[in-house]
């Protein structure tokens, strides 16, 4: 038969075992819930971090696109302006060259005309004509000196005031014939001299025409030299304009490039910082979640351990109840019948078992650590 002690001990052991099992189940459920909460929190923080990073990346893309478009438009305008200025400079260069060439053509036309006139005035026909004209002119000069009538003695003529020769018809006729013969000889001689001397006329003519031509074209020649000498100075502005347009265009392009790069760098920095903030926020939340999860797991583990102990005690009680029930009751003078509490003081039991001293709260230190709230 079961004595009341054994019955009570059995009931208590069964209750403790049941309570411990319940505690273990509850701890397992809490641990499961903690993991689920941590997963949800991690997912939420990752989602928030992703959204933040995505928005930052979109903003960076939009900012970079806008900066690039603005930069490219400005660079395009600057390049167009530079090309236009270069084209204008080239056109001015061509205009200056054209004006100088036109002026040079006018001057050359003067020289060409003079050269053509020189050639025409010194061609074979002209030279021959010059020679013939010179021959004729000199022959006429020589002929001009031929007396047409033989001069007779003047008033000093010792034969008297009358001309004896002309008075003598016979002598006069002879004198006329002789004078005519002399005149013929003189004309022939003069013609020969004129013909011989006329050979030098073409050379003289050529020399004079060359001198006249040189004199005539001298102003144009000097003007041509002046035109050539000043050409570099007149072309210099166009060269400066072209070089200046090029250098200014390149400088403006570099300026715009730098401006665009700064804008891109700013957008990149904004994105990087936003990403870092999102990463930091996510990391903090994940760390907090992890800590919370660990805490919950530790709590559940402690609760499960306590449940195990309680269940163990219940099992031990059941074993004792069974033992005593088997012996017909609790013997007198046993621990349960003669001495105080079943377990005595906990400190005594711990010391008797060679374990650590109990915590000031009355329980073992490891138990105190389990049941006391822990903040991490």
């Amino acid at each position, binding site marked *: 038969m079961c004595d009341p002690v054994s019955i009570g001990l059995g009931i208590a052991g069964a209750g403790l075992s049941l309570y411990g099992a319940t505690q273990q189940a509850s701890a397992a459920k809490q641990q499961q819930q903690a993991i689920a909460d941590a997963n949800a929190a991690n997912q939420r923080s990752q989602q928030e971090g992703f959204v933040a990073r995505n928005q930052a990346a979109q903003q960076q893309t939009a900012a970079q696109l806008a900066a690039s478009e603005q930069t490219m438009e400005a660079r395009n305008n600057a390049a167009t302006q530079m090309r236009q200025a270069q084209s204008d400079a080239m056109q001015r260069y061509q205009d200056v060259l054209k004006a100088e060439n036109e002026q040079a053509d006018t001057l050359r036309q003067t020289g060409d005309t003079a050269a053509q006139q020189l050639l025409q005035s010194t061609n074979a026909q002209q030279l021959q004509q010059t020679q013939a004209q010179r021959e004729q002119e000199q022959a006429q000069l*020589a002929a001009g000196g031929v*007396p047409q009538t033989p*001069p007779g003695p003047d008033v*000093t003529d010792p034969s008297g005031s009358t001309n004896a020769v002309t008075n003598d018809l016979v002598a006069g006729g002879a004198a006329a014939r002789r004078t005519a013969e002399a005149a013929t000889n003189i004309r022939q001689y003069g013609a020969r001299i004129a013909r011989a001397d006329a050979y030098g006329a073409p050379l003289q003519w050529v020399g004079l025409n060359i001198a006249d031509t040189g004199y005539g074209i001298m102003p144009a020649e000097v003007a041509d030299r002046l035109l050539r000498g000043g050409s570099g100075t007149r072309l210099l502005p166009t060269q*400066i304009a072209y070089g200046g347009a090029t250098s200014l265009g390149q400088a403006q392009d570099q300026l715009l490039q730098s401006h665009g790069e700064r804008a891109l760098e700013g957008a990149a920095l904004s994105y990087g910082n936003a990403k870092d903030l999102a990463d930091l926020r996510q990391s903090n939340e994940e760390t907090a979640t992890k800590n919370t999860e660990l805490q919950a797991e530790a709590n559940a583990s402690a609760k499960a351990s306590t449940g195990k102990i309680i269940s163990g005690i219940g099992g031990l009680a059941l074993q004792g109840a069974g033992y005593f029930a088997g012996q017909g009751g609790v013997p007198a003078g046993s621990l349960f019948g003669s001495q105080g509490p079943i377990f005595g003081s906990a400190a005594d039991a711990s010391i008797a078992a060679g374990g650590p001293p109990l915590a000031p709260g009355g329980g073992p230190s490891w138990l105190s650590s389990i049941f006391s709230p822990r903040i991490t």
Partner: protein
Amino acid sequence: MQIYYWNDDNGNPQAAYGEAGIPLDYVRRGANTVAGYQMLAQQDLSDKQIQAQQKIADQQNTFNEQQFQSQQDLQQKQQAQADEQAARQTQYDTGRQQALTDAQGQIDKAFARFTPEYFAGYTKDYLARAQDPIDYQAREAQKQLAFQLARQGISSSQAGINQQGLLDETRGRSIADATTAAENATDTLRSNVASARGNLQNQVGAAQSIGSPVAGSTIDDVNASLQTQRNAISGVTSTAGDVATSLQAVPTVNTLSNIFANVLGSGGQFLGGYNQGSLIKQFNAGLSGTDPNKASTV
């Protein structure tokens, strides 16, 4: 966890509960956890970085624009200088050319008298100048011949007529020779005129080349250079008239030798011999009854 205390801007005491290790400034801004503090600090750092980046960009842009503006100003200044220099060069060259043209016009004016008619007149004058002594000697020779013929008593003789013909031929040939000299002298004068005109022109060109071929740096410098050249050229052109006048020299003819001496000498000898021969013939004819006063049939 701890409690943080501070006074607000109005001096009122404030307190907040938060985790340990949070700077008070961030607690005042509402951060009660370390994580919140770190987020705020990171946000502050980000704002500062972006502001610094913007400031750097603005400074860089301002510097670039200043440099660009300076380069543009320098370019405009250089362009303006080159444009002005080119304009001055054109004005300078035009002025030099105009001065040269004016100078040549003065030379042309000074030498305008040397026309073909002028040289034809020179030839005639030269020939007249050369013919004058020829005619003079011819007249004297004729007298001498007439005297010789008269002395010989054969004034109306064929021999006298022949000698007269020789005198005429000598005179005519001398005049013909003189035409060569006259033409040569005219050619020489014509060449001298052309040479003198060319020399004057060369002098003008040399005077015109005085000064830099590049125009001065100011319009006053250009005008001063042009005036200097005009002065130099005017010094040459003012002498053009003198040069032209000096070329109008009276034709100079070499002294004529006695061109009839040979004719008269040989004629005298001939006539002497002829007379002797005639006298002997007439003497002989007289001895044979011929009338010594009979007219000559020669």
